[in-house]
């Protein structure tokens, strides 16, 4: 794949085949003419839990398998719920965790062949002056996509690591560094370069005092939909006393957004309505809504409050 710039790995193919059918192309997106099936790699779909080591996921484990894994359901409910919240049953049957976190954004300008936007190598973001109801309220620069994944915020909330294979060999990094924003490289949403592969996802065993929550706000309730906002929350607590908080939102920024300000506001505190409001407000302090998406600010705040409550229940 490294030798052929028009080669692309394919696993479940749910996102990639739609992308190819739409014929989206640009500087950063050649017309893929060779698909390399990576499902044949042995062990790439493993789901392995070890009390000492934590949870290891092959990137090709399907969302359905992760959702229904007893260990994941028992020890990482936020991940099970997030995997089960993504897409539709049929897509979860073939869609992989790696594909879910690496899928391309759903921005309608990006996915329309007629708009030569930054992400396709152009020099304009059409959402700025156009229809931006679903675009970013945080950290948008040049490009205002939102990260579409449901699983990614859960992985980040669980402090998972990504292991990738590059031309230089294997390297491991936290998912906080795995996703990159438009300032770093507007053509990509993560660190993977052409020919690189995500090979392993790993996360530590959660504290026995950890409570977890995943909440997804979407336009349609009973069928599947991408998140308007979702939030994955892990709270380590003793009763009302918060020891540690990990809160990650998606649907609001070009990458999954760790609400550091909210985490800081909660850490070491006793939970109260006032504290939650203050934390949620802090998280969205830097929100810069566009013309049509200010509603996401309120939703995000409410979801943070609700998810902390839920995690501590």
């Amino acid at each position, binding site marked *: 794949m490294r030798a052929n710039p028009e080669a692309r790995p394919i696993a479940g193919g749910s996102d990639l085949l739609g992308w190819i059918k739409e014929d989206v192309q640009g500087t950063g997106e050649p017309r893929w003419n060779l698909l390399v099936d990576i499902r044949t790699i042995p062990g790439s779909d493993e789901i392995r839990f070890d009390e000492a080591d934590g949870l290891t996921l092959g990137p090709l484990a399907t969302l359905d398998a992760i959702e229904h894994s007893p260990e994941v359901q028992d020890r990482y409910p936020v991940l099970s719920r997030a995997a089960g919240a993504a897409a539709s049953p049929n897509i979860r049957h073939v869609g992989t965790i790696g594909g879910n976190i690496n899928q391309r954004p759903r921005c309608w300008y990006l996915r*329309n062949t*007629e708009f030569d936007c930054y992400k396709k190598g152009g020099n304009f973001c059409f959402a700025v002056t156009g*229809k931006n109801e679903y675009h970013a309220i945080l950290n948008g620069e040049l490009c205002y996509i939102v990260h579409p994944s449901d699983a990614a915020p859960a992985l980040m909330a669980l402090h998972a690591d990504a292991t990738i294979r590059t031309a230089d060999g294997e390297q491991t990094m936290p998912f906080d560094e795995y996703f990159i924003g438009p300032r770093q490289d507007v053509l990509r949403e993560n660190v993977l370069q052409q020919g690189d592969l995500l090979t392993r996802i790993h996360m530590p065993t959660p504290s026995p005092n950890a409570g977890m929550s995943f909440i997804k706000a979407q*336009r349609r309730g009973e069928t599947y939909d*991408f*998140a308007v906002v979702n939030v994955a929350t892990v709270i380590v607590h003793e009763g009302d006393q918060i020891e540690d908080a990990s809160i990650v939102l998606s649907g609001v920024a070009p990458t999954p957004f760790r609400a550091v300000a909210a985490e800081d506001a909660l850490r070491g505190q006793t939970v109260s309505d006032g504290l939650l409001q203050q934390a949620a407000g802090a998280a969205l302090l830097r929100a810069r809504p566009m013309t049509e998406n200010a509603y996401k600010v309120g939703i995000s705040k409410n979801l943070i409050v609700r998810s902390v409550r839920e995690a501590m229940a």
Partner: protein
Amino acid sequence: MADNTRSVNAAAGRRYVYGELINPGADEIAHERYSRQRQGITQIERVLRGEEVPRNVAAMRAALKAGGAPEPRRGPGFQLRVEPGFVVGHDTIDMRARDKVTGRAIYSADVYPPGVLYTKVLRSPFPHAKVTSIDVSRAEAHPGVHAVITYEDAPRSSRLALTGEPAFAGDPVAAVAAESEGIAEEAVNLIEVQYQELPFVLSPQDALRPGAPLVRSGLETNAARDPQFTYERGDAAQGFAEADLTVEVSVETSYEQHVAMEPHNAVAVWDDDYLTLYTSNQWPHGIANSVSGELEMPLSKVRVLAGDTGGGWGDKTGRHGYHIGAAGEKDRAARALRAEPQGHLRGGGAQLPAFRDGAARAQERRQHHGARGHLVRPVGRLRPALQQRRLGGGDPDVQEPERERERVQCHHEHCGHLAAAGGRGALRELLTENLANRAAEAVNLDPVEFRLRNIETELDQVDDLPYSSNGLRESIEHGAELFDWANRWQGWQRQRSLDGPQRGVGMMCFECNKGSASPPMTAIVQIQADDSVVVNTGAADIGGGQRTTWSMIVAETLGVPLDRVRIEAMDSHAGPDALGIFGSRGTKSVGTGMLHAAMDARAKLLQGSPPRGRRTSRTSTSARASFTASATPRTKSSR
């Protein structure tokens, strides 16, 4: 329900059997005559004499009056009996269900003639542009490509199918027919086009502004007054002059799409100079008319048909570019073409492209309704002057404004029909009900009370026809009672939270068109030698159980078991034009035609009149009868 109706009929001293009016009085006869005239019988005579056919209701009414026809009377000319009968009123299994659950049902999308070719279309990326050069040589040389046509090759009358002056982003400019969809798509990418971009306008409001870019060159204006939906009544200016206050409302609805499950498609099969067009549609005759006109072929050589249709929602009523594309002129002798599916379902993801349209993927209604509704209130009583039928004002001296609907073009896709509440109905109700509420608020009146004071229950104000029934007052009163309106309504700006934050109460009415009996309502009922029945109609079955319903009507009327009735539909050559299946007219309109045809056949059988095409058997005779409510030739220019 049934008992009530029976008792009502009994009290009125009338008996109805199978929809026939028994012992009709002079009033009923007069009304029937009026209806038939209005439905086109006399228009046929006019056409035969070479006279112009009046096209709108007002003109028809004027003509009627001039000819001394009786004034319309209220009351129906016929009525279906409503108590459970021989077939009607009993549950039955949908006749198409078994084929649909096994995958055997064939939709036009499932038609793959041997050696079928596939078409793909090159579309303009610009909302308004002029093609300055087009080079198809590379596309034509691409292996597997059988034909490339551009707007220059399109039939002259069909420049809307392929155009050199695209008027929306997605307007087709050229089309390719090839061995496979993939090859066709590759070839489309090999066509080289130079465009000169032109100014464009995207909203009806902007399109009406002075100096707005014209949608196509050669137009004088983007707006067209639609006579069908324009009427004037009373003296609006006087009404406004007398008013105490005026409220105004303007509303907009958002972009709408049909998203029928079965994508748009057409498969054209040529047999010498005879074209068979399989296409998922709601009106085979309508599409046949358009296609034959644009290809300059006689209707006898254009057959439009479909098997089952995977939903329509209005969008499969008329001729689309892909119909012409599939039957492209260059390929008359070529193999069948298959149009690309259009109207992709976009309902699943949250981020629906608002601008994205490949033609017929989305429909923007071009109608722009002149929103000129106002309410006025002289001291002492309400003097409403709404332009809507239902809220029209009961007082005889009420002044009403003209109602006007403008069709405005802008640089969006061609607008088609749009089903039910998503279409102009929604816009109309939004306007009317907002007006009513704002007016009620302005005069500080309970909105329910406001409506009860202003509803029209006697006379249809567009057609000047009396309602046979209206039920609006009863509906409002019943709804208010169910809702406990009297207790819940706290007055304007004094809504109390009922069970949680931010909940108020409000009211509106919605008028749902359940299908008027509108012409043409035609069918041929053939009683076979063994007493089974074949019904021919050109009407479509778009999945609403039409064939089952029609079978029930015919079986009931003729007294034959349901499974001995066969409806041959969805085929412009298999039956007479019964207009499209839209506006919820399948049962009431087409079904009424079948009812009459079946009654006619029954009568002929009972009267022993010599049936045409008589065949004999030991047990029965056969008869063929047809009822034609209207056979008005349709001029092609009207679409």
